[in-house]
């Protein structure tokens, strides 16, 4: 299993499409930095194929005033959870 890390909002960059296209059936996607905007109900549809494997970083949601505003399908993790996701993955790929 690969952990894919995305730091761009789907509203500002199309790189999320490359990330989704390269994801295997068990891979996970973590949204960080401006990428957390993709976890909002208005944008989460872009991640439809991986909704059961979609994570967002709490600290970056908080710093943008977005905590508690994520779509309910998204699993919110803090930085310890980020580390845990990297433990569970064989490797990580960062998209930007």
């Amino acid at each position, binding site marked *: 299993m690969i952990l894919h890390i995305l730091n761009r909002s789907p509203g500002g960059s199309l790189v999320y499409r490359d990330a989704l296209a390269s994801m295997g059936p068990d891979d996970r996607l973590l949204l960080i*930095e401006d990428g957390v905007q993709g976890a909002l109900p208005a944008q989460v549809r872009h991640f439809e194929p991986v909704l059961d494997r979609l994570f967002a970083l709490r600290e*970056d949601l908080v710093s943008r005033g977005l905590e508690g505003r994520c779509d309910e399908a998204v699993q919110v993790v803090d930085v310890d959870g980020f*580390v845990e996701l990297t433990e569970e993955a064989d*490797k990580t790929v960062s998209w930007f």
Partner: protein
Amino acid sequence: MRYALLVQGAPYSQQASHSALRFAMALPERGHRLDSVFFYHDGVYNAARLAAPPQDEPHLPDAWRELHERHGTELLVCIASALRRGLLDEREAARHGKEGHSVEPPFELTGLGQLIELGRRCDRLVTFPP
């Protein structure tokens, strides 16, 4: 596990350095060892010896230095990226006939081969891009 981080974003311009530092500080608490941080592209500015940010803002070069002092984390700076941006240690400054230097230990100028080696040696390599 043994971790290495690759930092490619410029400090104070992009979030990459802050994200990487936050991740780095969480590692020991989960029982991991952070072997090395490799600074590449604009990430090399994290090694600027003369950085003097306002006192109420995080001092990134000092924060990396503290990480080295506490956990022995190597702070590796891509030499090709660094020289282009005016980041020279004493040896390179002398070699290029420059007065003064802008990189000092614990930051080390090193080659890309070290990054390949990190990927081989560490269990996880996590990239923080611009």
